[in-house]
């Protein structure tokens, strides 16, 4: 399994925990009070409870069921039922490799995490969940680039493509409603990092160049919605 995105960094604040699924692997992704991000198997070793239902206290994630506390290394260091007990070292959450780069949280469930290299000066646009396979979702984003991505008479170019990331150079239409997108000398770039949740669900995490305006981001967000509909309709028609 390769490195995949699980969330925009912006969408996981300090002291928050979320559930993420990656190629059918169920994960708890959380950020400590000091900002450290971790991605773990979504299962407390004690009684199998999903850790994504837990709560963050300082630098620990605690399970919702019995409050067992795990530190950022995954080691259980506090069992509330036995406050005086030093928990055995064998009680440990199952950790995955995780890193943050270019405003995106990347995880590899089986090996070293190596995020796709993207410019660091980007801003978060949104994440969109699409009910189709990753391949169909990727194709839909590409189709919409060459057809009518953001405005009716726009052409967008796919500048690079890996299994999990599409990098698009934003449109340059003369009549674009968003002035920064008309700036040929400094075009807006759009990055779409794709997360394979399972065979039938994909999440697209979208970022854009730092200089894209708020209006640009709203236009991109609406465009992503159209792509979703397009992708889901194309799945529906083949079923």
């Amino acid at each position, binding site marked *: 399994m390769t490195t995949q995105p699980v969330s925009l960094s912006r969408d996981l604040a300090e002291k928050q925990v979320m559930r993420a699924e990656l190629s059918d692997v169920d994960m708890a992704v959380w950020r400590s009070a000091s900002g450290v991000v971790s991605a773990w198997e979504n299962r407390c070793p004690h009684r199998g409870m999903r850790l994504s239902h837990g709560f963050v206290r300082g630098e620990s994630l605690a399970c919702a069921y019995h*409050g067992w506390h795990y530190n950022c290394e995954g080691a259980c260091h506090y069992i509330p039922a036995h406050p005086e007990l030093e928990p055995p070292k064998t009680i440990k959450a199952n950790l995955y490799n995780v890193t943050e780069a270019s405003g995106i949280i990347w995880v590899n469930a089986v090996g070293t995490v190596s995020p796709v290299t993207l410019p660091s000066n980007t801003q978060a646009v949104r994440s969109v969940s699409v009910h189709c396979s990753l391949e169909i979702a990727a194709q839909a984003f590409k189709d919409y680039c060459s057809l009518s991505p953001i405005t009716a008479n726009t052409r967008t170019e796919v500048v690079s493509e890996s299994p999990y990331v599409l990098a698009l150079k934003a449109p340059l239409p003369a009549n674009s409603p968003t002035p920064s997108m008309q700036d040929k000398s400094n075009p807006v770039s759009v990055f779409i990092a794709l997360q394979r949740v399972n065979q039938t669900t994909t999440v697209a995490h979208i970022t854009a160049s730092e200089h894209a305006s708020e209006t640009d981001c709203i236009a991109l967000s609406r465009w992503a919605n159209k792509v979703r509909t397009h992708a889901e309709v194309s799945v529906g028609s083949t079923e």
Partner: protein
Amino acid sequence: MNAALEHALQDWYPIAMLGELAPGERKQSRVLGIDVTVLANDSADETDSTPPITVRAEGAPVHVQQAFDHWWVCLGNAPKPLFSIEEAGEADRRFVPCGVVRVACSPLRAVENFLDIAHFPFVHTGVLGAEPHTEVYKYDVKVDETRDEVIATNIKFYQPQAAKSAEGGIQTEYIYRVPAPMAAVLYKTCPLKPEAMDVIALFVQPLDEQTCDVWPWMALYDDTSTQAELIQFQQLIFLQDRSILENQLPKKLPIDPGHEIPTKADYTSVAYRRWLKKRGAYYGALEAQP
């Protein structure tokens, strides 16, 4: 037929509350993955020998009996005796069948959760427990050989609102019994009558290995709360439990050691898993019967 199912078929399971169905009314249900039809018979006169209720599995009538304000069924050909709860015969108690809650989990996970006290401060916060009162003190667990039941005694836990009738926090004493693989009975300090114990039971109807209907039942000393208030209190507690039960992975209960890590507070759960294994009660367990 697999051995786990064959074993489970000889036990009794709740299927309806008494009076739940009007005469002539029927409902569909499921027990151990088998579709059943429950029919409340129309008995016109009192000399009629028609039983009040008929339950059929795949067209054939199955064993039926009434106990603890519920109808119970056994789909096997050699039913074991239904366990007893002596307090069900004490006329000064309030008997409260609490209805049914469907849970997407193994019936064994539902029972095990009922035997657990360490989760009270986190799942039933402010009601059955609260931080910092999280410690589970040493208690005793054994298998009663004559009754073939798991028994846990000498359990003490601080509870902010131990029952509907409780005013303020009390140190509550608990005793647990597991009289059948899919039933558990607890006895706890009665806030209104400290010398007596309230009885709360969990009767689990296994729809299949990963889905169950849970029928809580209580026999209390409480002459102030209304029946609706008592039911609502129990439903609140159980809905909090459901949010846990539907998020445990795997859905089936691992009964061999190694899959999950218990601590001292889990002695009852450890004893329950061993007892299930010893008697061959593998329906709803992760492992196949050896």
